[in-house]
């Protein structure tokens, strides 16, 4: 599907926010889009839905390689080729005490989730290395705690320390961020016997479940199997994932 870029701006060093027209299906929080980043890239690249409202889609992305670099150079009026929304998204259990945990650019899918989560009580913990971004958009949606590694903004330390403190007060945790963070969420939530869903990343080709390229190891009765991050995920119950 073709989509017209409405805006594209840097919001932190090498982090951009892009909005584009969206005439396709309405996304569910945690779902992602496959975007042709043009230039010399060959495959489309996956990006989470950061926000969505009547025909306007937002993504938040970090420049990492050729594809994201090309994206960052796009301007209003440019046309993108996109498929999606893909994947399962977060399972929303209404009326719970919810903790949303994001690390770095992993906060991307969590804004739209925070808007749609229908919690009884919503805590939002956002962890950054040094520079923070997008925090203001979370404010008002729940009780926001920010951490930075050196304490330049908010609490000093890792966002998982916040989770450790609060785990007793919530019914479910939703997380997205770097692998070590997700692993910590898995441990903390399993120990506390609290529900936890995490959004994973893996290299993707098709994004729809056909190529079996985006394998993620999950627990099975008899041992393990590989699930597809793009179709069976990207969101998994933390307890089933084998890191």
């Amino acid at each position: 599907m073709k989509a017209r870029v409405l805006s594209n701006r840097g919001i932190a060093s090498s982090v951009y926010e892009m909005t584009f027209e969206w005439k396709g299906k309405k996304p569910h929080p945690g779902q992602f889009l496959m975007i042709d980043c043009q230039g010399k890239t060959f495959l489309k690249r996956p990006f989470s839905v950061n926000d969505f409202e009547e025909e306007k889609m937002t993504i938040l992305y970090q420049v990492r390689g050729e594809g994201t670099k090309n994206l960052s150079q796009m301007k209003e009026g440019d046309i993108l080729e996109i498929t999606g929304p893909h994947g399962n998204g977060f399972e929303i259990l209404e009326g719970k005490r919810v903790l949303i945990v994001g690390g770095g650019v992993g906060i991307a899918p969590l804004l739209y989730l925070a808007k749609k989560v229908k919690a009884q009580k919503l805590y939002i913990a956002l962890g950054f290395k040094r520079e923070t971004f997008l925090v203001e958009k979370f404010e008002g949606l729940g009780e926001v705690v920010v951490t930075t590694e050196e304490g330049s903004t908010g609490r000093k330390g890792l966002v998982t320390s916040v989770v450790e403190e609060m785990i007793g007060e919530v019914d479910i945790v939703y997380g997205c961020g770097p692998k070590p963070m997700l692993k910590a969420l898995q441990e903390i939530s399993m120990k506390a016997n609290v529900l936890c869903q995490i959004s994973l990343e893996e290299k993707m080709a098709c994004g729809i479940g056909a190529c079996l390229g985006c394998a993620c190891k999950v627990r099975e009765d008899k041992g393990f199997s590989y699930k597809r991050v793009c179709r069976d995920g990207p969101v998994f119950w933390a307890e089933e994932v084998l890191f």
Partner: protein
Amino acid sequence: MNLSVEIGKIKLKNPVITASGTFGFGREYSEYIDLNKLGAIVVKGLTVKPREGNPPPRLFETASGILNSIGLQNPGVDAFIERELPFLKSFDVPVIVNIAGETVEEFVYMAEKLDIEGIEGIEINVSCPNVKKGGMAFGVNPDDIFDITRKVRKATSKTVIVKLTPNVTDIKVCAKAAEKGGADAISLINTVAGMAVDIDKRRPVFENVIGGLSGPAIKPIALKMVYEVVTVVSIPVIGMGGIMNYKDALEFLIVGARAIAVGTCNFVNPYCTVEIIDGIKKYMEENEIEDINEIIGSIKI
């Protein structure tokens, strides 16, 4: 206008097929395209027992291509028959099953099991480069190709297609061995063996070290091999390797492929197979070609 072609006993509405391993069992793509429009569907390679496949990462993007190291993840031949075939049978499209054995006996076992209604062809994958014990060893040796083909030929009433690996000195010898073994058709090329290194970790990107290269990067290699094979066998040839649009498809048909298969392109654009069919139709209209067979093998050297 006639777009239909025949591969062995299989009648295809048009010469556009899906390449094994790039189209799953059709389910996912059925959300994007009408499967009834396809010439045929070749399903993901099956093994006797279910296989978990290789640990991630399994994919790596290269210049105009991808390396994959899926490791033949599949539910096994029984689960395929039970859980996937009924879905495929609900469409009016020939189903070709790709099989990857680790021994000749396994190929024969699967061919027998799959000699059932709803399946029109067996594609013998003697060439998957990802399984250490399996494919590779067979695919490069003409005697093995002959042997497997002959035994599978005996084990099934279906159209038998032998899929060749490009990782050989002389693909013509392999093709002739398959023909002599009784193959109804030959398909090629499978992926080209390749590798990538993570320079930060100083490790191969894949645990298996070697992966299979596909996509437009390999198209010139594929076209050359299809051309060579067409000149030495009289059975139909299914050409594939890097086809991204109807023009690429026409190149393969012109050199003599009776049908073409689209693989990696499905990942880039899930609508591509249908777009290629439409593109071929339009080309034929514009050039006033009545029958696709006028294009096939029409190359002037």
